[in-house]
């Protein structure tokens, strides 16, 4: 079993996380004010367009989180020194990604009710997104299976490398198939972005703000995972020591 050194920190916060935290508050405050007050209503959707400033950034950050999970998993598997730090980053990123994916689906459902007239339809985009969410919930479940920390890291890394292949399927589902969901506006293949200037700026601000939230959460979460792994490890070491003492005394 790979030994782990004791942590050099007494809390999960550092100077870096505090700076990221303050930046997050500043940017998100701007997004909320601009999204609710400054940006105009849409000519067709009316006020419900404001849901976009949460829905789109949360979807992008969910993608980003799952890609980070795959990259960290690849580093764990393919690097010569199988550092468990990569595994913890992968796990933390997947947890945060699932949270953002849930936000995406909830806000999307609210927008769908106001625009389409339905909370949910099994169209290609919604179905593949739901499938992606279920896959990563499964990934998190696998991480909680019995076994050593190394077994957890190996199993989940393989799943992460396969699961990330779903992301292009979700993103391009509106291109491959006819979907009720509209096609991409910002990542339009023709590069023709048809969005009001302030709406676009607020949307990008939302992406920056949500990215900062993502980074802040990952930094804290992977450290709590390290503490949790060390606690489990010390419990196991204590149990082995107790059994050894018993055998000696007998």
């Amino acid at each position: 079993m790979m030994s782990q050194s004791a942590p050099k920190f007494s809390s999960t916060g550092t100077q870096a996380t505090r700076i990221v935290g303050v930046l997050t508050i500043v940017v998100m405050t701007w997004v909320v004010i601009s999204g609710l007050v400054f940006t105009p209503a849409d000519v067709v959707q009316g006020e419900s367009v404001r849901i976009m400033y949460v829905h789109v950034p949360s979807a992008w950050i969910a993608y980003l989180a799952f890609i980070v999970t795959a990259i960290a998993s690849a580093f764990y598997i393919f690097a010569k020194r199988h550092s468990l730090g990569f595994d913890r980053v992968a796990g933390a990123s997947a947890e945060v990604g699932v949270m953002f994916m849930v936000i995406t689906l909830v806000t999307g459902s609210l927008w769908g009710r106001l625009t389409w007239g339905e909370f949910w339809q099994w169209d290609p985009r919604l179905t593949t997104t739901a499938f992606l969410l279920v896959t990563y919930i499964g990934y998190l479940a696998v991480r909680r299976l019995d076994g050593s920390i190394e077994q957890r890291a190996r199993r989940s890394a393989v799943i992460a490398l396969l699961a990330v292949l779903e992301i292009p399927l979700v993103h391009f589902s509106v291109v491959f198939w006819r979907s009720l969901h509209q096609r991409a506006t910002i990542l339009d293949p023709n590069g023709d972005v048809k969005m009001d200037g302030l709406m676009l700026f607020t949307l990008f601000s939302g992406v920056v703000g949500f990215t900062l939230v993502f980074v802040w959460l990952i930094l804290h979460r992977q450290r709590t995972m390290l503490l949790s792994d060390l606690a489990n490890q010390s419990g196991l070491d204590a149990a082995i020591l107790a059994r050894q003492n018993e055998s000696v005394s007998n």
Partner: protein
Amino acid sequence: MDLTPRPESQAPKRRRWMPIIILSLVGVGGVVIVTQFLSSAIDYYCNVDEVGVRSGCDTTNRLRVQGTVEQGSLAKLNNTTNFTLVFNGKSLDVKYSGDPGGVFQECVSVVAHGRLVNGKLESNRIEVKHSNEYEAKNKDRLEESGSAACSQVQG
């Protein structure tokens, strides 16, 4: 007995390229299946010009038909909404039981669910299909944007 560790070159090497090849094959296989074999099975709707023509858009089945609500065709009578869907030069009359409500209006793309009866779609569900364009609500530009949407989608 010699207990010195064996040189690294003698240790069995793990084939690290195998997972990469397997992942690549899975990826390529997935792309082929998605782009070549699943299109007609997963498409959410038929366009107006495909009704009775395209596989899966048979007139005997319950249909989801996509088109633009033709300008000037919308008429509400008692508890019924009548309008014409147009797409790619073809049109289809729709009779909807009730008021679609929401952002339903002329010149927007909709998906109407229903059955064809005497060449008219009797619908019990209307979904407004929003485009990927976002434009500020502005009285001066409202009329212009509406007519632009009609001319764009009707093709």
